[in-house]
């Protein structure tokens, strides 16, 4: 059963002016239960617009977004419930923090959901656990935390709403490598425990290859490819034309296969590369 489905989705900015530009054009896709979907595309390719359409922040000009087979815009008054069900973290989410304490910031979503005090407490602690934030941070001001911790607090604020779908828009951008790795691991851990659909927008192909079950490739508002990562990254030339790269191991193994005249096989992880080299030894 599909959790999110898009049918003929269109969305344009600045409608009716000479600046009109379509962020998303005729998108049809379906995301199955339990998957991690990687989304790649050049800056301005419509990735973030698509995320906002899924979350119900913007209303499509044409077409439908279906959440559990129900059109999210069917009942206008219900759109707030969609925000809770499809959690979305924006780029640099720590720039949107306002709480005096970590607790207050994370609790903002659950309180808006109308939960009781006790339930909110549980939600906050749970979310902090997922985001690997120690309970000692509860009463600290989020502005005193390190960059990586701030990002975690911001993501925890979304997880605390217990969304059925979690959309992360470049969750690791602008962080140092250690924090990046930590957040990526938390995302995988969260997925393992909850089994929720995760939509992961990123520019780092190595990360996309590592964690996604399926990858969407966006270009100029169109969905160009939607397939397993091995199949996506084997279309290197097409990706290059859109200004996208493939993981470094893919390039290495591609080159090895080319030089040795071995039949192409797409390798996207380091472990895969090791196996491939050993296989070709003798």
């Amino acid at each position: 059963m599909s959790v999110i489905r898009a049918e003929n989705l269109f969305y344009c900015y600045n409608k009716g002016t000479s600046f009109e530009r379509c962020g998303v054009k005729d998108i049809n896709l379906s995301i199955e239960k339990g998957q991690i979907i990687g989304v790649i595309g050049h800056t301005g390719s419509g990735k973030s617009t698509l995320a906002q359409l899924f979350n119900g922040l913007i209303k499509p000009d044409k077409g439908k977004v279906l959440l559990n087979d129900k059109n999210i815009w069917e009942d206008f008054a219900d759109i707030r419930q969609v925000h809770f069900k499809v959690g979305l973290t924006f780029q640099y989410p720590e720039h949107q923090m306002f709480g005096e304490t970590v607790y207050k910031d994370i609790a903002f979503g659950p309180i808006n959901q109308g939960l009781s005090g006790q339930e909110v407490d549980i939600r906050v602690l749970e979310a902090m656990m997922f985001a690997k934030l120690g309970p000692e941070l509860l009463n600290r001001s989020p502005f005193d935390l390190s960059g990586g911790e701030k990002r975690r607090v911001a993501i925890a604020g979304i997880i605390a709403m217990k969304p059925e779908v979690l959309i992360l828009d470049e969750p690791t951008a602008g962080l140092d490598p250690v924090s990046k790795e930590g957040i990526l691991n938390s995302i995988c851990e969260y997925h393992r425990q909850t089994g929720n659909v995760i939509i992961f927008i990123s520019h780092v192909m190595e990360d996309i290859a590592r964690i996604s079950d399926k990858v969407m490739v966006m270009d100029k508002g169109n969905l160009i490819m939607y397939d397993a990562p091995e199949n996506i990254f084997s279309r290197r030339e097409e990706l290059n034309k859109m200004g996208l790269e493939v993981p470094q191991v893919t390039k290495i193994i591609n080159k090895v296969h080319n030089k040795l005249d071995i039949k192409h096989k797409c390798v996207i992880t380091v472990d895969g590369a090791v196996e491939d080299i050993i296989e070709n030894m003798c």
Partner: protein
Amino acid sequence: MIELRNVSFSAYDEETSQNNYILKEINLNIYKREFVVILGKNGSGKSTLVKHFNGVLIPTSGDVVADGINTKDEDKFCEIRQKIGMVFQNPDNQIVSSVVEEDVAFGLENLGIPRREMVSLVDNALKCVGMYDFKKSSPNMLSGGQKQRIAIAGVLAMNPECIVFDEPTSMLDPEGRKEVVDTIQNLKKGNGTTIVLITHNIEEIFCADRVIIMDSGRIVSEVTPYEILLDKNYMRMLGLKATQSIDLFYKLAGRGINLPFLTADEDKCADMIVEFLEEKKCR
């Protein structure tokens, strides 16, 4: 070019009501035409250190001498900052004007350069970063990488001898990152500018002559870029992320396959594997 003698820097911490040392007794020389990379975890004092180079920060104790001028000499602040330019992380927050060429001219206007000379200096700086075609554009219309190149041009127009880059690519997408890295390398080759680069990105350290490693306010060692790769401890200590080619090297070694050398470059890595497989192949 820049000489730091016993530089310490402390800031008053309200919570613990005592002076916190951010830099401790740093001795460092940066030579003309050198490309130096500074590595270190967040909070190790890298940014604080480089802000001493052009007198934005003044050491609590010790001296910083930039091109013969002590940064404590208030009369020469302008001269020091003209000689040592600085480019920061967020491209948006260093562009002043809504027209590209006027922003590039900003530093020159501050220096009081006559208009006649300004025009050619601005044009040259823009050509140098490959943004001449955008001189009349608004920065709001440009991509992150392009904006960062405008910021570089703004510093470059002042004809500095040294440019300090404080994580210039961390907020950019891969394409923007490549543009900026290429621009920095061109500066080194073309203009012979001294370059100091703070980065977390392992791919960016290989054009360096020297890598300085900082930890909790001290310089802990000075190495070549290649030495960083060889020592896994460095990578861990600095919180660097290995490229997949490096991971591959170690994982192959774990399976008894030893490639001749470590590299972050995919082509070199592929060549080594090809060579290895050709030897092994039963033909």
